[in-house]
């Protein structure tokens, strides 16, 4: 988000799904697309079958690797070097789009200077990838004519996550792969409404539509629209910082809506301590989750099928969610609960329906201004949609970037060694992620059919390591990091390279996040889930 915002002026996925069908080259990096975004995965495979080239970069030999024209199994945490190496080749062989750069991008010389160092040989040393593959990837991407980049948490969940994103943005700018169908830099958002939650200002530094809280004009406009007093000006704490503050006692009260940090956040032991340290914890959820069990008051919420509203997907497309069945017992929609509580806390909200809440969003959010439930009932709309007669915007950056001067900028990055690296005591690298059958903390998927299909934690381990440890398929193994330890059934597969284990994080009773560190990317405050030094033993 941050990486793209800085280079292009907007942090969202640049192109829509239809755009995939027009790409000649698909560059998938740090995204196990067929499992985390299966429908996008199917389109990528379709496009590949119809003749597009596919480049896949992932330390795990994910399913898409099978179809790849170029498959790169680089060392974890070496993404910046890899992309710099590709850019080196592109510049060396004059494959960049000079006209595009001249017209639309700033800071080219700085980029040239940084990537000069990243010869294929040096890049190969850092990434562990043969130089020919780096050259092949570079040439394939640059050849286009339309090349699109897709990435997910494999890029962002690193200490250098923002630099990783900046590098991909640099690559796209270098080859002019933006502003047309079939191109773009496309972060595939992991959760159904992560885009919407950001758009809505559920972030410590911005109101809706990324309007900065520090901006006095914005604040006064908001307080006018909301008919309230002065709004706070200083950016608040991020989730990870709030957790820290709770641990130290600076934060006294936490109100958690629909989240389960006991499973999804890094360093579970630390999270437990922090939440227990609070004076008052409210959890509003559909189940008595691991987090809710620590609460002082738990509020029963209506779930997905029981309420009206909207989600904004990974392509900035706003769609309706509709009530199909009644909520059980006294459970209520979150918006009703929040309205009731706000009024008890002294507000005078008069929302009678989700539709009215949406109108309030449109009123204070320029990019949503033209939308309403009524319009969305006709069909989805992508923001920016500034007026009621505006058709929405499927592709961003056509002709102009969102930065004030309309130009994008290169933000060159140097590769830095990861925060943690396997050593003698912790010789393995553990990486966490999602699997097809489950979602996030598993509170929904594990209570449905997929829960019967994949019941418990498994740990992917390379056949060589399994042999060395005398571990057989399905034997229990224990993975231990400096922060904690977790056990699961060994799944012996060359999907993971030697000396790497992969753990899905959906299983609360064997939470992979016991292992992870609350080490974050300083720029985006994203936890570095993908690299953890661990040891592996038979359990």
């Amino acid at each position: 988000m941050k990486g793209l915002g800085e280079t292009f002026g907007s942090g969202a996925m640049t192109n829509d799904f239809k755009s995939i069908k027009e790409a000649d080259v698909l560059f998938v990096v740090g995204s196990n697309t067929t499992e985390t975004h299966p429908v996008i995965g199917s389109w990528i495979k379709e496009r590949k079958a119809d003749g597009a080239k596919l480049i896949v970069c992932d330390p795990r030999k994910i399913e898409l690797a099978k179809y790849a024209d170029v498959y790169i199994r680089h060392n974890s945490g070496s993404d910046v070097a890899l992309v710099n190496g590709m850019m080196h080749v592109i510049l060396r062989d004059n494959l960049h789009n000079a006209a595009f750069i001249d017209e639309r991008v700033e800071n080219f010389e700085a980029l040239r200077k940084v990537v000069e160092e990243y010869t294929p040989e040096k890049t190969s040393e850092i990434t562990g990838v043969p130089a020919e593959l780096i050259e092949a990837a570079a040439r394939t991407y640059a050849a286009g004519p339309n090349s699109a980049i897709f990435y997910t948490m494999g890029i962002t969940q690193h200490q250098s996550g923002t630099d990783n994103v900046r590098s991909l943005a640099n690559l796209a700018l270098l080859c002019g792969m933006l502003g047309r169908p079939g191109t773009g830099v496309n972060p595939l958002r992991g959760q159904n409404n992560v885009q919407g939650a950001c758009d809505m200002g559920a972030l410590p530094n911005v109101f809706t539509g990324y309007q900065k809280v520090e901006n006095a004009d914005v604040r006064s406009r908001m307080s006018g629209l909301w008919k309230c007093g002065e709004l706070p000006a200083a950016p608040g704490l991020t989730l990870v910082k709030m957790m820290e503050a709770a641990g130290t006692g600076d934060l006294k009260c936490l109100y958690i809506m629909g989240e389960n940090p006991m499973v999804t956040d890094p360093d579970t032991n630390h999270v437990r301590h922090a939440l227990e340290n609070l004076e008052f914890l409210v959890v509003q959820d559909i189940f008595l989750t691991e987090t809710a069990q620590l609460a002082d008051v738990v509020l029963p919420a209506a779930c997905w099928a029981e309420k009206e509203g909207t989600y904004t997907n990974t392509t900035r497309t706003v769609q309706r969610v509709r009530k199909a069945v009644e909520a059980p017992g006294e459970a209520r929609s979150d918006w009703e609960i929040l309205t009731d509580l706000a009024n008890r806390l002294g507000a005078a909200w008069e929302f009678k329906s989700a539709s009215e809440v949406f109108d309030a969003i449109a009123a204070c959010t320029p990019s949503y201004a033209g939308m309403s439930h009524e319009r969305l009932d006709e069909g989805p709309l992508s923001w920016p949609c500034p007026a009621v007669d505006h058709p929405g915007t499927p592709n961003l950056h056509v002709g102009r970037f969102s930065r004030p001067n309309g130009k994008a900028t290169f933000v060159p990055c140097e590769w830095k060694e990861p925060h943690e690296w396997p050593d003698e005591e912790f010789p393995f690298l553990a990486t966490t992620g999602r699997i097809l059958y489950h979602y996030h903390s598993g509170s929904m998927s594990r209570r449905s059919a997929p829960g019967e299909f994949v019941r418990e934690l498994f740990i992917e381990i390379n056949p060589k390591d399994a042999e060395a440890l005398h571990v057989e398929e399905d034997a229990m193994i224990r993975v231990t990091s400096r922060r904690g330890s977790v056990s699961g059934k060994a799944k012996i597969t060359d999907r993971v390279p030697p000396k790497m284990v992969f753990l899905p994080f959906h299983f609360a009773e064997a939470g992979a996040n016991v292992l992870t560190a609350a080490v974050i990317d300083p720029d985006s405050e994203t936890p570095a889930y993908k690299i953890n030094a661990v040891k592996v033993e038979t359990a």
Partner: protein
Amino acid sequence: MQGIDLTINGKKVVAEPGMTILQAARKAGIHIPTLCEHPALPVAGACRVCLVEVEKNPKLLTACSSPVAPGMVIHTHSPRVLEARKAVVELILIRHPLDCFSCPSNGKCELQEVAYELGIRDSSFKEEGDTCNSYALEDANPFYVRDMNKCILCGRCIRACDSLARYHAIDFQNRGIKAMVQPPVGRDLEHSDCTFCGQCVQLCPVGALSEKASAGQGRPWELESVKSTCSYCGVGCELNIQVNRKTGRIANVTTDYQSPTGINEGRCCVKGRFAWQYVHSEDRLTRPLIKENGSFREAGWAEALSVIAGRMNAIKEDFGSDAVGFFSSARCTNEENFLLQRLSREVMGTNNVDHCAHL
């Protein structure tokens, strides 16, 4: 584009270039029965039910696969066509069990519809012992049941897997009368490339594939379809929640391959289609809970909300607004996220609001 003039059943019809006879007939409101055809799938021409007579053409043609040509004179229900069509359906019915009464597809079965339309009660070719019952029910996975006795080998599931799910987990195996649909080389479904997206289940025209959790949850005509958006990953697939109003429960979740509004073009994954039972889970929270002496007790809304309001106000007063924080959720709606940040900023006076964007 120049239209193509045709005559179908004596009616002048203008088709677009590139259309098949079936598409042209549908556009003109002329019904031709089909089984293996589905607009979301590549043409197979397998079931032979859509055979039509085209004048000057010695052979009957499958409407689904034959492109229109200028001046074609087409008969969709001539005696010759009806005889052939009836023969084909009766051939299919030789082995197909006629236990419609207990079949999960009763009411949406396309074979049932075609047979009804042609006035067929049973196959005149059928002899004792012909009804297929040799295949064991395959129900090892929690998602769907395969009853190969009912399979009519139309191949829609195979094409759905190939062209929509893009897996090729299944194909025809064996030849002649032993032909059947299976994962390759004797593997069972659970150890095949199948990812249980269930698109084949929805596209199966008969009862060979049926969703496990839907058994007994409602007949097709009892269900009301509610269009919504999937709550799993960030793709945002359009889903249709099928609700049985008699029970107030979800019967299953489907997709619409022809939906003009669905960004997913009808595609979906195992979670979107099959991970909805949690909605009716026994352990859903149904009343507010207040913790007392380390354990929860149920409470009414008024009490719970006033406890919260009281404690939050007190903390704000004692330690300032920034001693309070809010975690919003990427799984909640825009409306809910919007209100939570307003609660934080406007009501509590703090910017300590964030959500799990990065996890």
